[in-house]
């Protein structure tokens, strides 16, 4: 086919038009920053991104209704703010996207603190403990990080465990999966020798399948959970921190932790 002379001009025009349109749209959202708390109070509704595939933090019963530690904390938030709670079920990879695009006010989904995440979202103070560890078959001779060299570990992509493993056991062969369950399935089916998950998840797993050969190998860290929210919302953040501090003081947080994790929340970093 013959090229037409006016084609480059058209392209430029289209690009210019697109750019103008997008920047106009972008400006319209900037004006909303800093009003998140007002917005929640006015709309009488708190939209919280919660996990539904992460027991005991968030999972479903036979009626497919979410329950768990994160859901209880979400309920506490809504109650203290005096608004109705709307749960937004999310997956680990898209929980921050829900926040950034304004489709959720908070994310309470066992979110740990990482420097990368801190660049794009703000955190409250911690609301629950979270121990990460590497698990494997009882017979597997692994006792330290160094023992993991050359052995395969499954881990959920973008999770805290992923980061910790990469930092602390760079010699291990990490296989990354999209969600927690895929990581566990990979281990159970023998695709990987070990799996890096939260200790509470492993406990739930063991409770469901008492015969399962899964033993703790190496503790990675205590990476507490924080509530995530959009940047530049100081009023909202102060309010949330105030609610958490109060819940800590009156024992509500300990009670929630006791109910789901079998131990009180204990000392949590601010």
């Amino acid at each position: 086919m013959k090229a037409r002379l006016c084609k480059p001009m058209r392209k430029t025009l289209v690009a210019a038009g697109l750019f103008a349109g997008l920047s106009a749209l972008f400006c319209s959202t900037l004006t909303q920053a800093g009003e998140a708390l007002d917005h929640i109070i006015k709309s009488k509704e708190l939209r919280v991104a919660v996990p539904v595939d992460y027991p005991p933090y968030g999972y479903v019963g036979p009626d497919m209704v979410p329950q768990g530690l994160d859901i209880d904390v979400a309920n506490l938030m809504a109650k203290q703010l005096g608004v109705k709670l709307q749960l937004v079920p999310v997956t680990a990879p898209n929980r921050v996207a829900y926040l950034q695009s304004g489709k959720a006010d908070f994310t309470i989904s066992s979110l740990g603190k990482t420097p990368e995440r801190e660049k794009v979202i703000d955190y409250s103070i911690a609301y629950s403990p979270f121990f990460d560890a590497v698990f494997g078959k009882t017979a597997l001779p692994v006792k330290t990080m160094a023992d993991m060299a050359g052995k395969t570990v499954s881990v959920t992509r973008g999770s805290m465990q992923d980061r910790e493993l990469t930092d602390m056991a760079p010699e291990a062969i990490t296989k990354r999966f999209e969600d927690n369950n895929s990581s566990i399935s990979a281990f159970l089916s023998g695709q990987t020798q070990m799996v890096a998950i939260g200790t509470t998840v492993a406990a739930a797993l063991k409770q469901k399948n008492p015969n399962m050969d899964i033993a703790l190998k190496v503790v990675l860290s205590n990476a507490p959970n924080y509530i995530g929210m959009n940047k530049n919302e100081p009023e909202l953040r102060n309010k949330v921190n105030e609610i958490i501090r109060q819940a800590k003081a009156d024992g509500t947080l300990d009670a929630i932790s006791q109910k789901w994790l079998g131990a009180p929340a204990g000392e949590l970093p601010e």
Partner: protein
Amino acid sequence: MYEFTLWDIARNLLLAMRWTVGLSLIAFIGGGLLGALLVVLRLTGTRFLRRLIMLYVQVFQGTPLLLQLFLVYFGLSMFGLETTALVAASICLTLYASAYLSEIWRGCVESIDNGQWEAASSLALSFSEQMRYVILPQALRAGIAPTVGFMVQVVKATALTSVIGFVEMTRAGQIITNATFQPFFIYGSVALMYFALCFPLSLYSRRLEHSLRR
């Protein structure tokens, strides 16, 4: 922790199947209509229009549906354009399916020998008459197998809508697995349910092909 009975699992998966079926239908109907329009425009339009449609097809064939869904649902609202998950999924599936279907159908129409067009126009048939009486009946036969093949792909592709919050069969399976820790049983059931949706489609396409061949 609650116990899931077999019935709970089956019921929840079947309820989730409604989304798989519904989203597939949206893709078939929306994609089919838009795809047909694109084929006609591509066959009759000016060169500029043809190029534009070609670009459209390349863009939607060349980018993953997962990212299209993500960009339309989350991306647009970052620019202040609110879309619901259903609207975003409908837009993406329609655009995605129309790009593939228009390309499949264009190939089918173009596979008809040029002599057929010439013979038809020598009978003084208009373009629409040529299409209606000469080209389409032949193209239809050639088009059934690839069209149904693509439809089966779309049924499975609806699983990607879980990224924007749909709880369709795959996602429901994931969620239930995470509460029951029985991945092999539940994913196995989900796979069988997909098969139960797709196999009749393939079977019907074979029948249709046979009946058109006679």
